[in-house]
């Protein structure tokens, strides 16, 4: 029972961390960058 609880907590943490790292953080950074100034030619998209 205790073991199952510990495992559940660890897995939940890993899931949360992955979602944060792969999606949320990038999204937040992008939003922050949009507010900052990166010059007219900082990206080369079409």
């Amino acid at each position, binding site marked *: 029972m205790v073991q199952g609880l510990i*495992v559940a907590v660890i897995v939940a943490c890993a899931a949360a*961390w992955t979602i944060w*790292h792969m999606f949320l953080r990038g999204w937040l950074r*992008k939003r922050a960058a*949009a507010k*900052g100034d*990166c010059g007219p*030619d900082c990206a*080369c*998209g079409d």
Partner: protein
Amino acid sequence: MTAAKVVEPVAGAAPRTLRVALVGNPNSGKTAMFNALTGSRQKVANYAGVTVERKEGHLMGPDGRRISILDLPGTYSLRARSPDEVITRDVVLGRLISEPAPDVVVLVADATNLRLVLRLGLEMKAVGIPAVVALNMIDIAERQGLDIDVDRLSRELAMPIIGTVATRRRGMQDLVLLIEERAAASAGAAPSAWREPSAIELRALHREAERIHKACVKPPKRPDTFTGRLDDVLLHPVAGILVLLGVLFLMFQAVFAWAAPLMDLSNSGFEALSAWVGTLLPEGILKSLISDGIIAGVGSVVVFLPQIVILFLFIILLEDFGYMARAAFLLDKIMGGAGLHGRAFIPLLSSFACAIPGIMATRVIDNKHDRLTTILVAPLMTCSARIPVYTLIISAFIPRQQVMGFLNLQGLVFFGLYAAGLVSALTVAFVVRKIFWRSDAEPFLMELPAYKTPDPLNVLRNVLQRAQIFLQRAGTTILSMMILIWFLCAFPGAPSGATRPAIDYSFAGMIGHAIEPVLGPVGFNWQMSVALIPGMAAREVAVGALGTVYSISGDNTSLLGASLAHQWSLASALAFLAWYVFAPQCASTLAVVKRETNSWRWPIIMFLYMTALAYVAAFIVYRIAVAFGAG
């Protein structure tokens, strides 16, 4: 100044941090100077919104004032031609909102090659930027008997000048004093407006620089003939190419052969750790998570650290020695034939380590189309994250034997995989240019720096930085992925009275079985299909995933390779290798492409074309191998 002031930072009263930026031509020893000034107190990050690497460090001035040092990308002029140079210009001119204007700019000049940096100095003088000049590599200038009239130079540029040898930390303290003096003298002075010089103004600036050069610098009594003599060999149409091929081949043999003992060592280390944890914990689900999920999974990736270190050691040594530019020269025609710029060689070579720094390094290419082409093919270069996959499969399926007496067959196959990546990158580049744009490439204009003995400390610092980044990934992304994969593999458990192994009933088993029909024609079993999914996080995770899949499925073989060797057919293994030559599944690469190109179009194109190539290649390899009886 009293100590109280330092401790209690009242606005306006305490000395605030002095901001210093290093500016200079490429190859002027700017980064060595940055390292000499800041030692290990440095932080590598990105500028907000762009992926130009931002290197900042700090040191304490003699009076206890904190000095922060910013290492800016190298440039020949304030007129920026690439995103890197835009950053340099905007920081120097104080135009970047996220980056306050530096109090003092240190113009790092190669004392043996002053002509172009003089013009940059004149540009800075015209704008009124408070600057000091570090006449770097002064020892080489002295050895050559180069006579520089420092006083006159200082008057002409209106900047104080000091001779330094960054690699030996010579002149660093005096430089710091000079920076502080300059900051005190120019407090509050704002640079005037800057605008792009026209060709006529550039000529005038050049004439002025030339006049100063003539007046202040007497030609060397003993000019450097070493670089010229070495170039006679290294740039020779035949010998040069042979040397280049030799260097590349040595690099890959080294990655495979030298790293082996270290890898064996860390492998047995992780096994011992896993066994030790096994004795501490009671039998059950937690023990399974820690020893099967975390230790086995992360361990199987960290084991490849020695190879990554050796690869980076080579890349950094070649860069510091000055050979990279020569390689770009030798390869320009081949690259140009494939529609790439000679400079694309550097990003592509970096992609051997990881496509992400490689794609970031495409910033050295000014032209948009050249750059996009390079970005699209960079992930085809065999990145170090594929090394774990290649190593695992090769050591399990390719016999360790000598060919022609001195070549290691495993090393040869390894080299072949690298070559396959390179050839496909060039082919795709050629096709991309034909399909998307037919305009000619950017001018190829590149200085070939004088050869220099790499500074061991510098090399060491750079290699350690790379190793640290890799371990950070292993400790964060890979760790959390490993836990999730373990979860997918362990739940839901097998029903009572199950006949098949437990993992067959888990989520991972379900996903694997779901995509198996698609991958069946290329010879993939469901375990391989399962491993591809977590491989999205990072390619090397696939190895950990295979480890998890097989160690959980009740396989007692401790060595994953041995386990694979008797569960996979040779044809499947070869198809897996072929798949991994293209292996589109790297979420971070796609994310970087998205960020660098500022559109979803290119990452989507990249993902689709790489998946298609991977599938076709694996299919062909599998069918041929089966036809030869390896199925």
